[in-house]
């Protein structure tokens, strides 16, 4: 009886997920590719059914095996580990399709939990390399708790929590979690500086930076990790879907957009390292250095200048567009630094040379 209800539950869940994903893909890719999307989704549901039954048997085996442990963090560890192995052992073409693999991961995890009889929120993503997250706590206790809850659902090797003048409750929250590294600072610190410090405390190959005052769903964060797992060096939050018309956009967005355009990355639109969440590879961290992260706009320009692979990690709601990161003067100064950096490397006009003006006709070019 119980088993039946659970499986009904599962199909409902993945069915819903499938629907919403398919809807997005049609909307974004346009009508032409609709049949492909349809075919893919049929394949997806078939193979995710296999993943579910594999999950069930793996879950049963784990429960009766020697490594069985009643703690949920052990369950999460087991699922992440087993799923990673299973995923890597089935190298099929569609494995590169995020929506497909997320669906497979969901099915497998649901199966595993059914088989083991234990449940926990979890976002399965098969990573080849070690990942960590860095969060700088703000003053909001409830937000920090929500953020940590989401991070716990991910296959993270460690979570670096930067606490500056925390409340006792926040401190114990951070302590009570599994796999955390706590950086306790005696004085209040700017969040950019806090994250930069935090990034020095981990040696992971993929580092995810999240906002300590605004929780983002683990399923969204998972993709940032996945694209930085050998595919990109820098995975930015894609705000272009929320940016609205140019006229009504905040002034600082002009900086972000023009910085990208001037570095020949107009395709990144208003997206920048100054928006959370973002993820970077070890290569990016080593190339940029932790210090660079204290001024995100400059780090962004540097990442482009140094030829790092920069792309988008997903679409998460961000506080930047909602106006809470509204310190215009800081943003302006940061971009001054960014352009100074770029111009030192590439000259005053960057790649936009002036080959048509006859400046000698002017005689002495003043200034």
């Amino acid at each position, binding site marked *: 009886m119980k088993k039946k209800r659970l499986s009904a539950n599962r199909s409902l869940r993945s069915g819903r997920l499938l629907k919403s994903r398919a809807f997005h893909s049609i909307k974004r890719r346009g009508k032409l590719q609709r049949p492909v999307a349809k075919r893919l989704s049929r394949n997806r549901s078939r193979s995710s059914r296999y993943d579910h039954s594999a999950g069930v048997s793996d879950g049963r085996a784990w429960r009766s095996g020697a490594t069985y442990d009643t703690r949920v963090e052990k369950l999460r560890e087991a699922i992440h580990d087993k799923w990673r192995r299973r995923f890597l052992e089935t190298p099929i073409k569609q494995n590169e399709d995020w929506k497909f693999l997320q669906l497979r991961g969901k099915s497998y995890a649901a199966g595993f939990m059914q088989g083991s009889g234990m449940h926990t929120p979890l976002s399965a993503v098969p990573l080849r390399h070690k990942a960590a997250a860095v969060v700088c706590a703000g003053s909001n206790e409830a937000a920090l708790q929500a953020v940590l809850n989401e991070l716990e659902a991910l296959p993270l090797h460690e979570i670096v929590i930067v606490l500056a003048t925390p409340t006792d409750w926040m401190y114990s929250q951070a302590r009570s979690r599994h796999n955390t590294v706590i950086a306790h600072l005696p004085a*209040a*610190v*700017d969040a*950019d*500086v806090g994250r*930069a*410090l935090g990034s*020095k405390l981990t040696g992971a190959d993929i580092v995810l930076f999240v906002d300590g005052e605004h929780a983002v769903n683990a399923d969204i964060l998972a993709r940032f990790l996945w694209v930085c797992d050998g595919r990109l060096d820098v995975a930015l939050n894609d705000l*272009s879907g929320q*940016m*609205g*018309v*140019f*006229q009504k956009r905040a*002034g*600082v967005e*002009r*900086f972000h*957009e*023009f910085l990208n*355009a*001037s570095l020949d990355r*107009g395709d990144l*639109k208003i997206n920048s390292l100054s928006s959370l969440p973002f993820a970077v590879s070890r290569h990016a961290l080593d190339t940029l250095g*932790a*210090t660079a*992260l*204290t*001024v995100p706009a400059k780090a962004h320009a540097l990442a482009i200048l140094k030829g790092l692979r920069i792309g988008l990690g997903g679409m998460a709601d961000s506080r930047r567009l909602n106006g809470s990161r509204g*310190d215009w*003067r*800081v943003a*302006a*100064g*940061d*971009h*001054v*630094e960014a*352009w*100074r950096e770029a*111009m030192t490397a590439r000259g*005053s*006009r*960057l790649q*936009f*040379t*002036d080959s*048509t*003006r*006859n*400046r000698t*006709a*002017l*005689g*002495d*070019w*003043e*200034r």
Partner: protein
Amino acid sequence: MRNIVAKKVTELPRPNGDPWSVPYVSVIVPVMNERRTLRKVIREAFRVHPHTEVIVVVNGSTDGSLDIAKKSGAKVLFYDRPLGHDVGRSIGAREARGNILLFIDADMVIPAAKLKAFVHAVAQGTDVALNDYSGPVNKTVVHGVVLAKHALNELLGRPDLGGTSMTAIPHAISRKALSVLGTSALSVPPMAHTMAIREGLKVERVISINVGQLNPIRAKRERNNSLEPLIVGDHLEAIQWWLRKTDSRGGYEDGARQRWMVR
């Protein structure tokens, strides 16, 4: 009015001759193969003020623009090769004797009544009177030049200027602005724009003239041989000029960031 045909123009200080012969307004019109509209453009230019000189800088023209200019009563400066975008403005400004300099293009007829608004603004104390036209901004992704103009104004702490710029015509400047900016900078208009703001000149928007709508031919050229990279580069050159004049953060403070903590 005299006709001057000059191959090479030498730097002339503003002549202090008979006040009755000295024009009040100098209208500067760079011309490169714009026979179609030139006559009308010059006619409107002469109407902006009773004491007006029109300086036509003909460069690289092979379509008879030169003859039209000569017959129009304007002062004509002639260069047989193209000077390049906006260089004609500097050349014309060097020759200008008026108290107010009005810059227009030869491919677009703007009625004198509208041009007068810019002259009037400078007469009232504005140093740089800009066309209050920001381009099409009611969309998610705007043209690169529109973006550059907005970003530069924002960076200079003048978000109120929107996407207005000395890049766009018409605009008028005072004699004072000319002496502060120098004539050369006018060839790279965003640079002159930045200098004007940086040097504390009074830079204001006047009226809006939709130059995009007025000129479909220019839209066609934009598709074939876009000026976008040139103008974006101009804005970067302007930013770089400004960076040299200011501290590492352009005078904007660092907030509460303690960078020294991360080494």
